[in-house]
């Protein structure tokens, strides 16, 4: 592990400073390449697609560090390698979802089985790989209940028996997928849709009409997600989006109050407080700060998916 300063209070400028960003990027690439190579083996993924994945890991890591400007309360990253590996692994999961939906489904089934049946033991080895093996004790009590899960359990036990050693969960999944006839090897020779996936979906949305449409989607968000987003969101200069919405007349004060679930009097009292910090929002909602952050991320994700679907 490299001794990098990962103080989340770093300013944007500090994160951009060389050599810190370069060192981080280099380290992230090393870790990401290892994860991507290991998890994509047997998938015939073209080298440049792997490169795209690794590059995306770096982008996400640096983006996460830069977030400290707006969200100083973000939890610090204590183990950088582990964080990078997790990001890389989740990107591989997304890739698998995109190109091998059946493989992903089987993986979820296998994980569910392993986590709910005491005949199996799941562990993470020294290299960070998730492995499984038959449980050593026969006193296992928990059993899966459905016929489908029982059949899956038999298959996994058979595979583990044949191997005679612990297997990586991904390998078990691929073996099951092959047995079921699912396609697990495709030639990803094109510049995958990964880049498309992470395009900024709002590049063409900077117009009043687009913001109105966005606002109507925001009104459709579940209440807590809406509050987590609106009460905290601000422009680059720190101005609250609620104030900007009112100032541009894209939404009336009454409509904003209704979206927040408060009366106009309370809205009037709120103007000077905006934007609110996450801990303040958390106190209003009776949640933890992290839950507020998670709700806001979910809101933004939902907006991205909803608005991209409409375009």
């Amino acid at each position, binding site marked *: 592990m490299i001794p990098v300063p990962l103080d989340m209070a770093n300013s944007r400028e500090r994160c951009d400073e060389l050599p810190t960003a370069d060192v981080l990027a280099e380290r992230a690439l090393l870790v990401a390449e290892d994860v991507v190579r290991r998890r994509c083996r047997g998938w015939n993924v073209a080298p440049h697609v792997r490169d795209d994945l690794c590059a995306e890991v770096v982008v996400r890591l640096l983006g996460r560090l830069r977030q400290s400007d707006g969200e100083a309360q973000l939890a610090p990253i204590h183990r950088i390698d582990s964080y990078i590996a997790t990001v890389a692994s989740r990107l591989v999961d997304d890739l698998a979802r995109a190109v091998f939906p059946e493989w992903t489904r089987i993986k*979820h089934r296998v994980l569910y089985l392993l986590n709910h049946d005491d005949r199996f033991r799941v562990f993470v080895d020294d290299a960070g790989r998730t492995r499984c093996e038959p449980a050593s004790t026969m006193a296992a009590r928990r059993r899966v209940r459905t016929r489908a899960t029982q059949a899956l359990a038999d298959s996994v036990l058979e595979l583990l028996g044949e191997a005679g050693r612990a297997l990586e969960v991904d390998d078990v999944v691929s073996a099951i997928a092959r047995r079921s006839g699912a396609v697990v090897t495709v030639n990803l020779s094109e510049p995958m849709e990964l880049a498309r996936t992470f395009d900024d979906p709002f590049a063409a949305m900077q117009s009043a009409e687009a913001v109105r449409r966005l606002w109507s989607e925001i009104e459709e968000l579940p209440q807590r997600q809406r509050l987590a987003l609106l009460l905290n969101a601000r422009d680059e200069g720190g101005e609250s989006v609620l104030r900007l919405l009112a*100032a541009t007349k894209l939404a009336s004060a009454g409509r904003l109050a209704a979206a927040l679930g408060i009366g106009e009097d309370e809205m009037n009292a709120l103007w000077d407080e905006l934007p609110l910090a996450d801990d303040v929002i958390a106190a209003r909602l009776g949640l933890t700060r992290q839950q507020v952050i998670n709700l806001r991320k*979910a809101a933004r994700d939902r907006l991205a998916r909803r608005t991209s679907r409409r375009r």
Partner: protein
Amino acid sequence: MSKPEIIDDPSKRDEAIAALARALAGELDEHPSYAMLEQVVDRTADDVTDEIVRSHLEVCPQCAEELRDLMELAGHAHTRAATAGWLAIAAAIIIAVLAGGWWMTRAGRAAAPHSIGKAVTTTLAPTPDEFSLLVESALRTGRIEKPGILRELRLPADVLRDPGATSSSSAMTPSGVVIESVTPMLLWKAAGERYVVSIFDGRRRVAHSGVLSANQWTVSPPLARGRTYGWQVEVRRSGSVDIMPAPPAAPALFHVLDEGSASLLAGARRRHRDDHLILGVLYARMGMQDAAVDELRTYAAQHPQARNVAALADSVARW
């Protein structure tokens, strides 16, 4: 107490709006992790996690399908997705009819002492299979509910801002329908010299055609079952490239019948090969509108006295 002042200067207002768009911009996050899905399945998720996952499922059919699959695996099959909702309807009908039969049997037994001296028929009626029960239900009510999946596949077009824009998803087949084949043939209105077809699952392209000279393409590799796909055609002409369907037209979407429904349909065809009524009702329940109308009309043509079937066909055709 300072309510924000209205920005009157048009250029400043534009700047503010652009800043707003950036500040409120959606940002794709990772899909919920397996751990989150498992918590929802096991009902151990806290209410925030539960809300985040369920909110995501509303906009991500793939994750919705994954959760449904896990639910089934875990034995929580009652949470099946809407696409398979007709199965639940069928089950409810079967249960209702069987319960009715059980009740009538009991009533018959109870009434037996009063039937002394009468001839009692003990011959059991053939057990009606589930398909016949679906038909009975449809004929009794005179209609078949439009499956919810069709509403999801037939999104309204955006408001037409450019009256000159003519591209429409109606010029593309299949669109707004449920299909059975995992390698459907896609057809579109001839409009250029070369075409490239792309198929998307959500935002991700899952298949594309390469450059074509004909206005049709049979999808390859096979699509996954139980998924909703969008598709578009890049129309290449000398000097220009257009996309069909172009805004403000609604996206061209189709849903590939899930595995369970497909095998049930295959079973129904084996058992009721020539029964156009049963097949018609089954197709309708699955959202396969055109096939349903064809079968029902075939049946109606063969049985002119069955006016209710002709009406049923018309009602499905009006979806």
